[in-house]
């Protein structure tokens, strides 16, 4: 079973972080990974856009190329890591309706993680619809079975109240396996959303917590930024192979879906969302939480500050 945050691990981590901080201060080395919130590096972030232009391109190949462009998967996953992937599989909808993360992409990412030496890959999401139905119908269950990844079902015993120390959210029940990961991967799908205009990477973290989630809507953008800061993933890979352009976030008809054949990979949560928002014909500052994310220095949508790459297949 999953290992937990106990006093001992907390102390160990604190030591590591503080030690790392000293080291990084000395050597100028960046520290990435969950838990090292304050160690956000000043090193240039990156954003890679992958586009499958040719007919019948291989999504797996595109995913691989996108990772290569970002410096190779070993940059993100080390040997022996426990990797937790947070896809968006909130709805019990077929994959072609674009309400959930593309199962083929999920499979590709899991394979890449294993190839990079991950000890264990877990898929965890606190879904909106019944999790059994979501995992089955979205195809995530089959992907887990095929790849040997572990499906983590949201259970009340896996929700633990933690200090988020956000601007708006202080303490909140958090889906424990996500904070226990060595590497946390955000794998959302790009969708329309009535209240927040779009749901991309940062908003995906609402599926990583428990508690009275429906109350978050009362200050949704700030809540999203608080959660994104807390979870701070190793990277965000936005699935825009097909996007939901209206009736989001649940959709339900193929006419709600547009094909984009695009993947966006970045270690900057704000930048990834900003890039994806442009696929919808919007500018990043039109979306509250992207705007706030830049203002609170969570990331940037000034792409000039980033190492930009584009992969076309």
């Amino acid at each position, binding site marked *: *079973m*999953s290992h*937990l945050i*106990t*006093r001992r691990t907390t102390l160990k981590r604190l030591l590591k972080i503080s030690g790392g901080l000293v080291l990084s201060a000395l050597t100028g080395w960046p520290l990435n990974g969950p838990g090292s919130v304050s160690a956000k590096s000043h090193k240039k972030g990156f954003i890679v856009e992958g586009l499958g232009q040719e007919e019948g391109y291989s999504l797996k190949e595109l995913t691989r190329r996108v990772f290569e462009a970002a410096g190779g998967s070993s940059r993100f996953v080390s040997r022996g890591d426990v990797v937790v992937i947070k896809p968006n599989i909130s*709805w*019990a*909808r*077929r*994959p*072609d309706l674009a309400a959930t993360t*593309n*199962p*083929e992409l999920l499979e590709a990412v899991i394979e890449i993680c294993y190839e990079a030496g991950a000890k264990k890959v877990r898929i965890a999401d606190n879904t*909106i*619809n*019944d999790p*059994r*139905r979501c*995992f*089955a*119908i*979205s*195809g995530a*269950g*089959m992907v887990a*079975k095929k790849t040997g990844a572990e*499906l983590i*079902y949201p*259970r*009340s*015993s*896996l929700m*633990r109240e933690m200090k988020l120390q956000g601007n708006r959210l202080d303490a909140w029940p958090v889906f424990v396996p996500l904070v226990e990961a060595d590497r946390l991967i955000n794998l959302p799908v790009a969708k329309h*959303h*009535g*209240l927040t205009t779009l749901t991309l990477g940062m908003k995906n973290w609402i599926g990583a917590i428990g508690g*009275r989630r*429906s*109350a978050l*809507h*009362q*200050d*949704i953008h700030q809540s999203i930024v608080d959660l994104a800061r807390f979870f701070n993933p190793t990277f965000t890979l936005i699935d825009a*192979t*097909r996007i939901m352009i*209206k*009736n989001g*976030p*649940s*959709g*339900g*008809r*193929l006419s*709600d879906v547009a094909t984009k054949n695009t993947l966006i990979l970045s270690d900057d949560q704000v930048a990834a969302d900003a890039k994806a928002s442009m696929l919808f014909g919007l500018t990043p500052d039109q979306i509250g939480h992207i705007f706030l994310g830049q203002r609170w220095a969570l990331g940037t949508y000034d792409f000039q500050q980033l190492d930009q790459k584009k992969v076309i297949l």
Partner: protein
Amino acid sequence: MKATHLVWIRRISQGLFLLFFLFLLIESRLPQDIYLRYSLVFSSDLDLRIQWPLGFFFQLDPLLWLSSLVSGHHFITGFWWALALTLVTLFLGRIFCGFICPLGTTHHVVSWVKPALKGKRMIEANQKSPSQRVKYLLLTSLLVGALIGLNLAGLMDPISLFFRSLALAVFPGLGVGIKEIFDWMAKSDIRILNHLSYGAEVLVSPVFGYSYQSYQSAWFIGLIFLLTLFLNRIRPRFWCRVLCPLGALLGIFSRLSILRLEKNHEKCTNCELCTKNCQGAASPIPGQQWENAECLMCFNCFDSCTEGALSFQLRWPRTLNRKPDMGRRALLTGLLAGISIPLLGRLDGQVHKVSEPRLIRPPGSLPEKDFLRLCQRCSLCMKVCPTNVINPTLGEAGMAGFWTPRLVMIQGYCEYTCTLCGSVCPSGAIREISVKEKTERPIKIGSAYVERGRCLPWSGNGPCIVCEEHCPTSPKAIYFSKELVTGPDGKRILVPLPYVDLKICVGCGICEYKCPVKGRPAIRIISAGESRSVKNQILL
């Protein structure tokens, strides 16, 4: 065959059938290992189904078959199992009661583990008594009632009663207790306790439910079940002797049975061991006439007789056995009750005049009149529902609809692409539907309305729109428009205000369930607009 062999065959058969019953009961839920080969190119919805024959015991039950037939003129799926059992009963008597019935087995075990009485008093308790006619009274009233149009058989039917009690009261009750312990362990700072709680939960939740299962008024169902168990303290298998209408029905069929208890007067020493061990109070002792209709075919008398004065034998050609002692008064009372109960049940006007707004039936339910003719109140739909939204009614469906299914949206919601309840309904009161039919026709179970006084944006308490986000239809039945409302300090604030498009709303209730206003949400579902009713409609 030797008597001990027969008794052991009986015990093994009882055990196996009880285990099979429990197995099917536990499997009456979506498992966590459903693997569908969904991919992007796959563009039609699959219906999730449970592969086990969950309705087996209901199909085996002649009372459910007969009552559905006379009331709903409907042959329930798999009724030939019941037909087969009837045929077996015609030859071998109430073999079902002694060998198969899981409720009978439970009572048998309870009576055996803790015998109600000792010695002489047990012998007295096992004398046939006039109270045993009550079951014929009940059977008559249930069948006559079914004929007139109200099928209450499931309230008393042993399979329905047992399933309902276990599924709604016993298992969820234990589940809540166990889960509370696990949650407490998971919260603990002691690492080993955390691990234990996760590990144990993985083993335990498939049996007791993946979340805290709750059912309104289930305490009452549990209490009645405990009462029927307690009755064994008065007489062994009290339920089977006195109350079980299925036992009464099988007793009537057993008149033609060729498996008979043969008594040998000469060998009998009048030790009364046979009577003492008789589970059905069927007068096994030589000197009294054997009551074949009361005999539960447990073979205890045969086994306990040390003198060889008793034996069960197949006798051919067939001769008529003793008539079941029903009692004319019991029959007349049953007849009267059977006529009056359906008529009394109609007096609330639910069928002919008004519909209760909070009586929201599962998707695919038949019109109320037909529904009451078929629903056996077995609670299988409530058990399989993945969101725990289906609950037994108490008063919402009137006296006639007692313990029929109803959706309680503060507890769950009807998932848009789920069609599980109709696929398991043993009597067809909920039709089996496909996702395509449910979403495209569409099948509506009610309509949503906004209670503006409680709604956060409407009452000036800020933005929300959780209902709109969760609305599963496309286009969404809940839409919003950004308008100015007066906030707490008198300031005008611009917020999205929710509206419901009744043409599109299917009444699934996810809006009510997810609404941040808990308990009595600001958006609610009423049954008006449900597809199954011609009258209970809103729009032109």
